[in-house]
């Protein structure tokens, strides 16, 4: 049976290193992040523009009745930062439907140090409890600083009933999850029926740490590691999840953040080589870069968009990678990757010797 009711699009965003450019490698970084005011918080270039474009209702419809798009933020930041983070999102024109923050202070007061460090149980639990039943497409946005690719894919498989309880238990133990968190999550999963209407369509991983992209092959084609949000926008445009005017807007936002046309051309070429984008989509991008900027008085495309458009007229790279087809994520190998790719922070000045 077919239905005209559009599937709900549920966007799940991580905050730190995905939406906000946050440093938390040292105690000093953590303190500075905690004390920053809303207007001092730096965004990852293009993130607000992309999210605003994703939340626009499709042409010819309105959200007067049931909304067709929702956004949930799930962050590892402490709950005490809710006011400043909500204010930051408000400044950016984003009003999340749900905003989940981590109970770090209560974990600290109860000496649950593992729970403070661990993201797997916390994020998985938050994803499961905030999901919307029914015909829903989820698009998840995270980064490579934590284990977002693993968590998001595991979530996608859990809601479809593709991961057994013993398997989940094993994964949580491997991740050194706090015992009570583990028990709580296993109970939550046991009480959750599989949801065949829910589909995790895409997982975007912002490569804040510039991790090797092959690391994400094991999660299959739906997981797209990206160097910037322009790359994600291009893939989403290919998936028909963004309106035509979104790409020029994101290009303009990145241009204002100091991006050069060369960096964006390199980003397109990278996606072409990695097999996420083809000639047709690049041609679509070129056509849309010639459109006037929506929401402005400017009738012509900007100089930056025109330069980029011209640069993209050159032949595309010949190398095209065939993306690996993964029927089932190998979580044993994925857990081993966490240790394998855990890199000590390089003291660059010392290494370079001057």
């Amino acid at each position: 049976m077919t239905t005209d009711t559009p599937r709900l699009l549920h966007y799940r965003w991580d905050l730190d290193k995905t939406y906000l450019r946050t440093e938390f490698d040292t105690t000093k970084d953590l303190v500075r992040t905690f004390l920053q005011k809303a207007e001092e918080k730096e965004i990852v270039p293009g993130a607000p523009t992309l999210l605003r474009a994703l939340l626009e209702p499709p042409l010819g419809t309105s959200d007067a009745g049931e909304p067709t798009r929702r956004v949930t933020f799930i962050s590892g930041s402490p709950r005490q930062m809710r006011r400043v983070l909500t204010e930051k999102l408000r400044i950016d024109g984003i009003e999340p439907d749900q905003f989940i923050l981590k109970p770090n202070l209560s974990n600290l007061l109860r000496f649950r140090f593992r729970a403070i460090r661990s993201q797997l149980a916390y994020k998985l639990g938050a994803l499961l409890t905030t999901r919307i039943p029914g015909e829903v497409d989820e698009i998840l946005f995270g980064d490579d600083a934590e284990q977002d690719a693993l968590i998001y894919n595991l979530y996608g498989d859990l809601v479809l009933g593709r991961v057994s309880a013993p398997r989940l238990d094993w994964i949580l133990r491997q991740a050194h999850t706090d015992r009570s968190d583990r028990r709580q999550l296993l109970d939550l999963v046991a009480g959750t029926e599989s949801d065949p209407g829910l589909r995790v369509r895409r997982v975007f991983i912002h490569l804040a740490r510039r991790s090797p992209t092959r690391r994400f092959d094991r999660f299959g084609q739906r997981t797209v590691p990206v160097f910037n949000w322009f790359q994600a926008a291009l893939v989403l445009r290919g998936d028909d999840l963004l309106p035509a005017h979104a790409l020029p807007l994101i290009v303009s936002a990145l241009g204002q953040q100091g991006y050069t046309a060369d960096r964006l051309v390199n980003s397109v070429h990278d996606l072409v080589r990695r097999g996420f984008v083809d000639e047709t989509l690049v041609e679509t991008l070129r056509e849309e870069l010639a459109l006037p900027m929506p929401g402005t008085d400017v009738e012509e495309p900007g100089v930056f968009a025109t330069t980029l458009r011209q640069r993209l007229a050159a032949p595309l790279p010949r190398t095209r990678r065939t993306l690996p087809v993964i029927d089932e994520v190998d979580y044993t190998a994925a857990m081993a990757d966490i240790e394998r790719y855990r890199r000590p922070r390089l003291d660059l000045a010392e290494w370079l010797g001057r």
Partner: protein
Amino acid sequence: MPHPLLVVPIVGPAASSVALKAAALASAQLDLTFRLTGDERAIHDALLDLPHDAERLAIDEDDDGDPLTAALRLVARTPDAALVCGGERTLLDAARATLTPLPGGNAPALAAIHPTLRHRGRHDDPFALILDIGASPGASGDDLVAFAHRGAAWARDIARTDLPTVALLASQVPDEHLPAALRAAHATLASTPDAPFQYLGLLAADRVLEGSADVVVCDALHGDLLVRTLHSFATCADQLLDRARARFQWRLGVSMLLGGIDRLRSLADWENYGGAPLLGYDRVIVTLPPEAGERAWANTFRLARRAHLRATTGPSPRDIEREREPDAP
């Protein structure tokens, strides 16, 4: 100021290329922008396993099978580009065939950067320059004079030395016994009081490490001998220290001096201050020896960027040549 584009030919198998690993790391951590030439498919495949920043790494398909020639052509047609490459034997011929030589002599000079006792310039830089160390065997007197000007321009732009000191390397023999080229260069330099550097005269090899001269000019044969001797001296000192550790009392002494020894090692380790600039063309070119590791490559990328930025913000090598030759067009 736009980022200079660092062009790096990836010669040989990309998967094991030190240059590629270093460029990948530098793209992600040093805010540097690269264009790699070579086998596009192999380079891309290797990059999938390396931390890198794809925004700052472009790959050029190498149509004629020679990454170095492709890199030189790219540098020749891109004003904002600098070349960093391994010291391939073909570099000098390929550069001569592709790039525009600066006015004032067609002989290029390969320069070695070396630490000295005396520091110089606005940045208290301990490094001085020796050139030529192998690019132009059989250099004439005019060529040596051109080397002096190019070395001085480098010292002024890179080490920020306002009035660099320049000397000709020579043994302590009467002037009439000096080689003809050296004698001619000495006569020209000594009779040019308004040169944009201070000419110190002839300098014996035992005073090079003192650092009284910011630029030491010599022919390719003597430059090569001098630089190799300096490098072997550093290696010998390192090995002597290792031997000293074999005896308990010496080991104790060495461990007490460890902080100072590490600083000396760091100063003497050529990988810390990058490769050898090839001077004489209107583009920045820096080469590295085949044994160079990732650190040497990363430092050379920084050196090339600095050289490019300073050469473009201050007077260009071409301007300096014009200043030397007021009649030049």
